[in-house]
């Protein structure tokens, strides 16, 4: 195995492959940073280019685009509170407050280093533990997926500490909105309100662009702020962040990366779920969880390491079982098939050179990402020096084309504007756009797996057996209960602190 790894590394280090990795990373970061352009779209657009290359070079480029795009989503999440990709939703929780506090350089460097770390951990799992993890993925059936979604949704209670009722309402509204369109079981149109095109359902990305981006533009322009945030280039931010992450965040980065890898392995569960679960876990294990959401490095490091770790995870079932763990992995699998390579356990023996070149190139890509990202950060952070009136208008144009590009549909543009208004007015009355986005993302997966589990229970004759007896389900149920209890306790403690502060103020 070590021989193959060495040979793979030598292949990956060929000048042409290095060039492809850097070009792919740069393109991926730009694509990821643009709202509406996803990693899937970036990789899919570049697949035809790989047909003229040898399979290993093609895969190296696609892997670099994938890694770059997942990381790139954090740039816009931090700078304009608009997640460039769905997996950067949790990045807004602390990234945006850091940016507003004049710490954009620290935030951008944290997301870069954490992403590279997560990517490396995910790839190491892919390299050394692919087979056992692929078998674990097979143990996830509908009930386990359902509980995983419920565990993800329990984050709402955590993220809305101090405003739990409205957080729950926001999450439920998101879940309800996600039921618009065809019913996943019977294929019946639901909740179209007499407007037939809604049968296509609510596409997650336009809804998110609206909730985070368009509503933010209305807010920024209306607030008459001259700039989005105070920004002065901060020399030495990179090394300061490295020291901080090394000193305080080793555990957070490791835990979040492992969560990201495991969630990534599960087909259908991607960076958006992983980053939210990792964020929630970091908050739960922190001595002072109330700091989360106020703009701290730890929160940002959790979400960014987790979402990039899903890349290695999602490639595990794709390479070992021929089951893609994400939409991007599915596109990459298509590219492999075009080259006549069939994924499966045998890929490591029959096409070992290709497999190990690809995997080791991902290690290299994550190292290169730090270099390429550091250069790009210097340019992207300057967005903050452009007056709000220009940035706001440009973001509207980008949001519109980004929403349209998903399905080439003007309906998605209208959905984006609608959710922009919902996000704007919702936040004025204390609703939580993050919780709503979470509901929209997790709703379809939760409902589909609930329905499948109920069908299984019908056939099996026992709801209890289907939902509550598998060890994975039990672990997820325990984690969900712990998550809710911790949030409740935290909420009570916070209430106590507020009461104490009020009383001491009176005294």
């Amino acid at each position, binding site marked *: 195995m070590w021989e193959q790894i060495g040979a793979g590394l030598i292949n990956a280090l060929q000048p042409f492959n290095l060039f492809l990795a850097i070009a792919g990373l740069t393109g991926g970061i730009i*694509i990821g940073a643009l709202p509406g*352009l996803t990693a899937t*779209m970036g990789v899919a*657009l570049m697949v035809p280019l790989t047909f003229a290359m040898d399979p290993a070079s093609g895969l190296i480029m696609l892997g670099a685009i994938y890694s770059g795009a997942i990381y790139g989503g954090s740039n816009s999440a931090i700078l304009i509170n608009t997640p460039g990709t769905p997996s950067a939703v949790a990045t807004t929780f602390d990234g945006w407050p850091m940016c507003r506090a004049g710490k954009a350089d620290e935030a951008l460097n944290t997301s870069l280093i954490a992403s590279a770390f997560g990517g490396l951990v995910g790839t190491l799992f892919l390299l050394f533990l692919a087979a056992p993890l692929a078998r674990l993925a097979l143990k996830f059936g509908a009930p386990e997926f359902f509980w995983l979604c419920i565990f993800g949704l329990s984050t709402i209670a955590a993220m809305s500490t*101090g*405003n*739990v*009722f409205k957080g*729950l*309402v926001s999450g*439920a*509204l998101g*879940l*309800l909105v996600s*039921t618009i369109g065809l*019913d996943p*079981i*019977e294929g*019946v149109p*639901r*909740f*179209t*309100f007499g407007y037939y095109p809604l049968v296509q359902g609510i596409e997650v990305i336009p809804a998110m662009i609206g909730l985070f981006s368009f509503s933010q*533009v*209305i*807010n920024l*322009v*209306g*607030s*008459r702020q*001259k700039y989005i945030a105070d920004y002065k280039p901060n020399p030495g931010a990179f090394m300061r962040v490295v020291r901080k992450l090394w000193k305080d965040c080793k555990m957070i980065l490791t835990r979040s990366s492992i969560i990201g890898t495991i969630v990534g392995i599960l087909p259908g569960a991607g960076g958006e779920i992983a980053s939210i679960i990792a964020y929630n876990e970091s908050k739960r294990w922190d001595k002072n969880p109330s700091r989360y959401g106020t703009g701290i490095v730890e929160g940002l490091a959790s979400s960014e390491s987790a979402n990039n770790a899903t890349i290695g995870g999602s490639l595990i079932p794709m390479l070992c079982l021929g089951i893609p763990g994400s939409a991007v992995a599915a596109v990459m699998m298509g590219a492999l098939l075009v080259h006549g390579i069939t994924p499966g356990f045998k890929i490591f023996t029959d096409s070992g050179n290709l497999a190990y070149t690809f995997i080791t190139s991902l290690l290299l890509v994550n190292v290169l990402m730090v270099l390429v990202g550091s250069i790009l950060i210097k340019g992207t952070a300057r967005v903050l020096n452009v007056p709000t009136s*220009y940035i*706001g*208008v*440009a973001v*509207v*144009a*980008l949001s*519109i*084309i980004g929403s*349209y*590009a998903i399905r080439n549909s*003007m309906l998605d*543009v*209208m959905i984006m*504007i609608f959710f*922009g*208004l919902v996000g*704007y007015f919702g936040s*004025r*009355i*204390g*609703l939580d756009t993050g919780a709503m986005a979470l509901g929209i993302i997790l709703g379809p997966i*939760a*409902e589909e797996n*609930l*329905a499948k589990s*109920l069908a299984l229970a019908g056939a099996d004759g026992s709801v209890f057996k289907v939902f509550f007896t598998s060890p994975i389900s039990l672990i997820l149920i325990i984690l969900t209960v712990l998550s809710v209890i911790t949030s409740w306790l935290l909420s009570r403690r916070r*209430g106590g602190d*507020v009461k104490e502060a009020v009383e001491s103020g009176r005294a």
Partner: protein
Amino acid sequence: MAGRKADLIAGVASIVVALLFGFQGRELSLASKIFPLVLEVFLVLMGAVLILRGLRGSKEQQGGQEQIDYTRAWLVVLASLVYVAAINYIGFYVSSFVFLTLLSWFLNDRGRNLPSLGISTLFGLLVTGALYATFWLFLKVPTPQGLLF
């Protein structure tokens, strides 16, 4: 917005949305509506809690909200709607150029004079050019078509 008023509005909105979905889904089979039905019931209950809390005086924490110039806020929304409507008729790139130029000129802090119109025109050209290069030339992503471009 004051906590009480915000709670009342959030509570009423939550119940109205739940009832709207409930009414729309009244003819669905149980299998199709079980998941949304649970959510509708939950929203009605939560809405009632929020309304009660609003009537009694909210205890939850309300974040401080910035003062908003609603004229500018609504202008962005209306201009965006006009922009979206125009895309269908005159095409994405021309509409984008006009939208970017006029709205950035109208919103800028230097006043609506000829020099600032010049800067906004340059800004409109640059951003439209960047959109064209990214979406059309490089990524080959289709953009909405109209009479012009």
